[in-house]
């Protein structure tokens, strides 16, 4: 052990043994946190926005662009709050995005392709990694969740479509299919019909947004930015609330089950 190590331990108030236990404890917490971040980010996304991300041909300019960032910023903000409040670690959003990415590729490969035999090109997932890194970057610099919500929330919404464009642009190229103009993603969808998703209930590009002189994507992006700001603030507060270590005293009869005298238990 170097002199520097001893000084670190002295400042931390730990001996060599306790420092080792503390490090072991850290490793265990990291694994628990990783499982939890992935699980909660995923179940939140799956049942609030999953439909627009399952299929390439559902990734439209109206709903996908709006709903995906709004839903993903919820857990990004909540985990930022948990990591920042408890550990002063500014990577809650990035952890959420990275672990979500691992989980979503695992499922798309094993379930969509492995069990239902859809091609991966039909089920390529989106990502919010860029927006998450920007959120964490702004939190690191500003150390203020309000500032992060205002500027980070805006950039989270703006960067979503742009950062996914690299992956999905090839699928949005126009092709002629039986005399009709379609996108390549649409053609893949025509080849692999989904019995549970009949065409007439597809929730894509409804209304008259497309008549906004070719600006439908930007209208959706700015609406998404607007909601992301407030969604971030709400979920930061929920994440911070989740870190409250509240407890309610147990009753005397309950304490007796563990050999505690009621008066003793209040010490």
């Amino acid at each position, binding site marked *: 052990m170097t002199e520097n190590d001893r000084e670190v331990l*002295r400042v931390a108030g730990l001996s060599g043994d306790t420092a080792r236990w503390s490090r072991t404890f850290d490793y265990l917490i990291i694994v628990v946190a990783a499982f939890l971040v992935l699980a909660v980010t995923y179940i939140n996304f799956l049942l609030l926005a999953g439909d627009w991300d399952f299929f390439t041909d559902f990734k439209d300019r109206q709903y996908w662009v709006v709903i995906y960032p709004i839903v993903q910023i919820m857990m990004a903000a909540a985990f930022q709050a948990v990591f920042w409040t408890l550990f002063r670690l500014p990577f809650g959003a990035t952890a959420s995005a990275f672990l979500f990415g691992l989980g979503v590729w695992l499922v798309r490969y094993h379930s969509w392709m492995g069990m239902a035999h859809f091609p991966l090109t039909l089920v390529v997932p989106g990502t919010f990694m860029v927006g998450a890194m920007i959120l964490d970057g702004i939190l690191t610099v500003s150390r203020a969740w309000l500032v992060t919500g205002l500027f980070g929330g805006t950039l989270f919404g703006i960067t979503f479509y742009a950062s996914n464009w690299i992956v999905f642009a090839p699928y949005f190229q126009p092709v002629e299919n039986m005399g009709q103009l379609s996108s390549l993603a649409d053609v893949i969808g025509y080849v692999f019909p989904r019995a*549970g998703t009949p065409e007439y209930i597809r929730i894509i590009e409804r209304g008259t947004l497309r008549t906004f002189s070719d600006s439908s994507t930007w209208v959706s992006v700015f609406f998404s930015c607007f909601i992301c700001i407030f969604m971030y603030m709400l979920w930061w507060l929920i994440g911070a609330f989740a*870190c*409250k270590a509240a407890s309610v005293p147990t009753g005397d009869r309950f304490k007796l089950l*563990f*050999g505690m005298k009621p008066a003793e238990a209040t010490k």
Partner: protein
Amino acid sequence: MSVQVASTTGKDPQKPARVFNILPVAIAWGVMLAFYVSLRLYQQAFAFKFGLDSTSPDFEIYWKALFKIEVPAIFGIGAVIWAYLWFTRDRRINDISPGTELKRYFTLIGWFLVYTFSFLWVANFFGEGDATWHQTVIRDTALTPSHIVLFYACIPTYIVVGVGTLIYATTRIPAFAKSYSVPLLMVVVGPGLILPNLGYNEWGHAFWFTEETFSHPLHWGFPVLGWTALAIGGVLLQVMRRVSELFKVFTPAASLTAK
């Protein structure tokens, strides 16, 4: 991964003891992994082959039989684990040494390692696997091949582990016996309520064919109950506060002043 305790206080036994033993966690992970992979392979082999028509004799043999076996088996194993934890509870919980208390906190984190691992398979792998099924196949029963795995094998499994975690904390660790930890209750009870929420889910699906919209309001109970797992932050805060105090018990004063 194991760490040796060299006791420095008079209350602890002098012989070295482990603070944490990863082996039980590794065994639990291994058993769960084998169980989940087996279920996935079973789906691969028989889901589309015998799971499309719930009125067929093959469905009765390959899928309803699995349902009838797994539910009592998992909750039966759970009842044994819960009973063991309860009847072997510490009846002198206020008299435990700091070393024992520290070890029990590490064991509690071990329970969380198993609990979050089991929840992961529901929230991620088999959860979206269920979407795969419903976006592809029109349901004719609540007991689809994907539901029989997700709802009636994976969810009961994490309920067994979650309730076990709660009982372990309450029966072995003084702070959790003296007071109900609100975040711990949320972490265990919230996701556990996903199982009864299935009643609403299946009841709703009897009226509306909404599987093609996975994010339909009918399904919002699932993520809302999943959010309660965020409260693990509060549990960790409670654990870390006490563990930090216990670390100081084992830190000789000399090591804090020497330079």
